[in-house]
């Protein structure tokens, strides 16, 4: 099996691992970089369970070849700020948890780019994260709450 040295910045830390040439970003995060918070759902770019931020942009890590992550910044669910987790816990954003790592990363992206919400409704925004338990009510409640506390923080 062909391998290569992959260096990237994972949740703020520079790291290097020897990984398979044909691995996906999702695989190396989970099995080489010891960051199993990111989950595989469909492996086809539909369900969004594997969402991460790649250089600050929301992507499905199952569709990113690992070699394209070389030298780039990756943020995963593991680096979620505790106060955001608290908000999402309080609003019932997570139920069974399978979709949660991806849901959290989509929410983090929107918090960094709240202007996206001006042109897209929150439910449409979350359409790339398939959740089969919450009926999305808890997810949208968490997203609204998080956007509000973000706006408040920006004011103060």
């Amino acid at each position, binding site marked *: 099996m*062909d391998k290569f040295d992959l260096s990237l910045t994972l949740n703020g830390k520079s790291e290097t691992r020897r990984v398979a*040439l*044909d691995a*996906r970003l999702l695989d190396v995060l989970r099995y080489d970089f010891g960051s199993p918070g990111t989950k595989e759902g469909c*492996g*086809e*770019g*539909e369900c*969004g369970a594997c*969402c991460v931020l790649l250089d600050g*942009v*929301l*992507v*499905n890590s*199952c*569709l*990113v*070849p690992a*070699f*394209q992550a070389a030298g780039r910044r990756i943020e995963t669910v593991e680096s979620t700020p505790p106060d955001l987790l608290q908000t999402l816990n309080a609003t019932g954003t997570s139920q069974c948890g399978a979709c949660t790592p991806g849901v959290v990363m*989509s929410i983090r992206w929107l918090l960094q780019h709240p202007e*996206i919400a001006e042109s*897209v409704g929150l439910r*449409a*925004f979350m*359409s*790339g*994260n398939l959740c089969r338990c919450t009926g999305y009510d808890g997810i949208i409640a968490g997203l609204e709450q998080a956007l509000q506390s973000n706006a408040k923080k920006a004011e103060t």
Partner: protein
Amino acid sequence: MQVHRPYTLHDALALMAATPTPTPIAGGTDLLVSWHHKPKEKLALLDLSQLGGELAAMRLTADTLELGALTTYWDVIASPEVSRAFPLLAEAARQVGAMQIQTRGTWAGNIGNGSPAADGVPVLMAYDATVVLQSTRGRREVQLDGYYTGYKKTVRLPDELIVAIQIPRRTRKAEWFEKVGARAAQTITKVGVAVVNDEKGWRVVANSVAPYVCRCRNLESALQKGQKFKSPEEIRDILKNDIAPINDMRSTAAYRETVLSRVLFYRLADKA
């Protein structure tokens, strides 16, 4: 598996001329679907993601929009100027998968992959786009309408790379796009259509109703003659010579034909 990661277009084109010809990869949103089930031993990839420069640029001038081959759907959505100049591009971009796909998928990749269900291609073809192909032998421009010759077959030669897409800016009298799928968001098209009427005339481009995204020329010439339609069935009869829908896992030929003619009938009644 082999991976080439050139930093310049010059190197990329040299690699495209090698044997076996590598498969270009940009956003990977088509290539990596169900990646672990795919045989990869003999695969050679040419990663375009480090090329940047001209390939990543989007240029809007007084008479043309040029999308570098690495332009993503998100680049268009996030550009108010481009979205205003070519509203259907933004509208179609928002309906390609979810945002996680839109941030990675490229317009050139959508053309290159050649899926009959490609959602980026109908609007580009309706806007009369040109595909810019380049190889070590030179550069040539091909009309997107005419780019496909069969199911996943194109006029691109093995050593050529799509480097840009050019769209002329024209005064338009009508433009709209409709996508029909199993649900509102994140769905693969059962039937779709983009319609533009500009100074060069009508262009009606449908997807998922033929082996490749195609213009409906019989309907176009009827519209050109100013024909008004009394029923969807009238449009359906004309379309019979324009499209060749099939039954597959997503829909049936009859559904596709019926829905396409109804969408066209009601939208044309509104906007024509």
